[in-house]
C-alpha cells in the first residue's frame, strides 16, 4: 500500500483542537489531582483509623481497577446517582482527578516516609515548634524528593487521558479516530497521533531522569 501523509494537512486544525483538549484536561487534572493526592497522602498517615481507612480504600480501589471502567462508571453512573447532568468535560475531569489523586497520594506518602527519623529527632533536640518542623524541615525535603515521581505521574495521566475518547470526549485520540474513519487512512492518521503523544511525553520522561540525577546529587541521597 502507498502511504499519503498529505491528507493530514487538511485536518491540522481539528488535530490542534483535539490536542488542546487533551492538554487542557491534563493540566486541570494535574493541579486538582496533586492537591487531592497530597491531602490523601497526609490522611494515610493520620492517627485516626477511620480517616486512614477511608483514604486507603479510596487509593487501593482506584489503583486496583482499570481507568477505563472508572471512566465508564463516572460517565454513566454518577449522573444517575447524583441526579444531575454532568458535561463531558466535568465527568472527564472528575474521573482523571480521582485517578491522579490516587497515584500521587502514594508518591507523597513514600516521599514523606523517606525523610529520615533523625531529622525529626534533630528538630526536637533544637527545640523547634511543631509547625516549623513540618513547614521548614519535613515539607521541603518531601516535596523535592517527590518531584521526579510526580512528573512521571503527570506523564501517566497525560497518556491515560486518551481514554476519554472512549466515552466520546473530543480529545486528540477521538479526533484522530474520527479522521481516520472518514478518510479511510488509519495508518497515516493514527501514526501521526501516536507521534504527537510521543513528542510530548518523551521530553517529559527525559526531564524526569535529568531531575532525578540532579536532585540525587544535590541532596546527596
Amino acid at each position, binding site marked *: 500500500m502507498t502511504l499519503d501523509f498529505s491528507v493530514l494537512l487538511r485536518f491540522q486544525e481539528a488535530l490542534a483542537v483535539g490536542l488542546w483538549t487533551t492538554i487542557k484536561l491534563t493540566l486541570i487534572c494535574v493541579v486538582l489531582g496533586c492537591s487531592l493526592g497530597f491531602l490523601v497522602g497526609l490522611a494515610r498517615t493520620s492517627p485516626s483509623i477511620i480517616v486512614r481507612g477511608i483514604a486507603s480504600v479510596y487509593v487501593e480501589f482506584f489503583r486496583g481497577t*482499570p481507568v477505563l471502567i472508572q471512566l465508564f462508571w463516572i460517565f454513566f453512573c454518577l449522573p444517575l446517582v447524583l441526579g444531575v447532568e454532568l458535561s463531558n468535560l466535568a465527568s472527564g475531569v472528575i474521573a482523571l482527578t480521582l485517578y491522579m489523586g490516587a497515584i500521587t497520594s502514594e508518591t507523597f506518602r513514600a516521599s514523606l516516609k523517606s525523610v529520615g527519623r533523625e531529622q525529626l529527632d534533630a528538630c526536637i533536640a533544637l527545640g523547634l515548634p511543631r509547625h516549623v518542623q513540618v513547614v521548614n524541615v519535613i515539607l521541603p525535603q518531601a516535596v523535592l524528593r517527590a518531584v521526579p515521581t510526580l512528573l512521571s505521574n503527570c506523564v501517566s495521566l497525560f497518556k491515560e487521558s486518551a481514554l476519554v475518547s472512549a466515552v466520546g470526549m473530543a480529545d486528540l485520540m477521538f479526533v484522530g*479516530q474520527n479522521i481516520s474513519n472518514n478518510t479511510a487512512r488509519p495508518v497515516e492518521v493514527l501514526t501521526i497521533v501516536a507521534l504527537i503523544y510521543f513528542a510530548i511525553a518523551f521530553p517529559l520522561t527525559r526531564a524526569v531522569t535529568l531531575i532525578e540525577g540532579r536532585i540525587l546529587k544535590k541532596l546527596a541521597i
Partner: protein
Amino acid sequence: MNYTFDFNAVSLGPLIEGLIVTLELTVAANLIGVILGFPLALLLMSRIAVIRWPATLFVEFFRCTPAIVQIVWFFYCVPMLFNVFLGSMTMGILALGLNLMAFNAEAYRAAIQAVPREQVDAGIALGLNPFQRVFYIVLPNALRASIPVLLTNGIVIFQQSALVAIVAVQDLMYQAKTLATETYRPIETFTIAALIYFAVSFPVTQVVGWLERRRQVLTS
C-alpha cells in the same frame, strides 16, 4: 436520589466468561513480556550503538504513547501495513505483550544495573568467563530484584487489557458494556465488573508490598 438498585438484573455468566478472556489475555501477554523483556534489556545495555538505538526507540515508543493508541494502531494498521490478518484475540495478546515487553525491559535493566560491581569483579577474580558471569552472577541477582516490578507491570497489563474491549475483543470490560446496555443497569453492572477487576489485582498488589518489605528487611 430515587434509583432502586437491582443487582439481580445483572447475570454473572457473561461477566465470568469475560473474566476468563481477560485472564487469558493477561497470562499470554505476561509470558511474552517476562520472557522477551530480558533479551530486550540486554540489547538496551549493549555497547554497540546500532543495537542499542533501535531497542531504546522501541521501549521509549511504547512507554511514551497511550496504550489505547497502541492498541487501536495495532488493530487498524498492522493488517494494512503487513497484510496479515490475525484473530482479534491474537492481536490483543500481541499488542499488550509488546507493551509489557517494553516496560519489563526497563525493569530488568534497572535490576541488572543494581547488581553490585564487586560481585562481577569477584567473578572475574574467580576466573569465570563473561557468559558464566552473566548467567550465574548477574542473572539470578537481577531476576530476584526485579520480581516486584514484574508483578506490578503484570497487574498493570491486567488492567490495561480492558482497553481491548474498544476493539471488540470480548473481555470482561466488553461484556460489562454489553450487559449495561442490554439491561439498562449501568450502575450495577459496572460496579460488579469493577469489583471483579479489584478482586484479582488487589491480592497481587498486597503480595508485591510484602515482597518489597521483606527485601528491605533483608538488605538493610
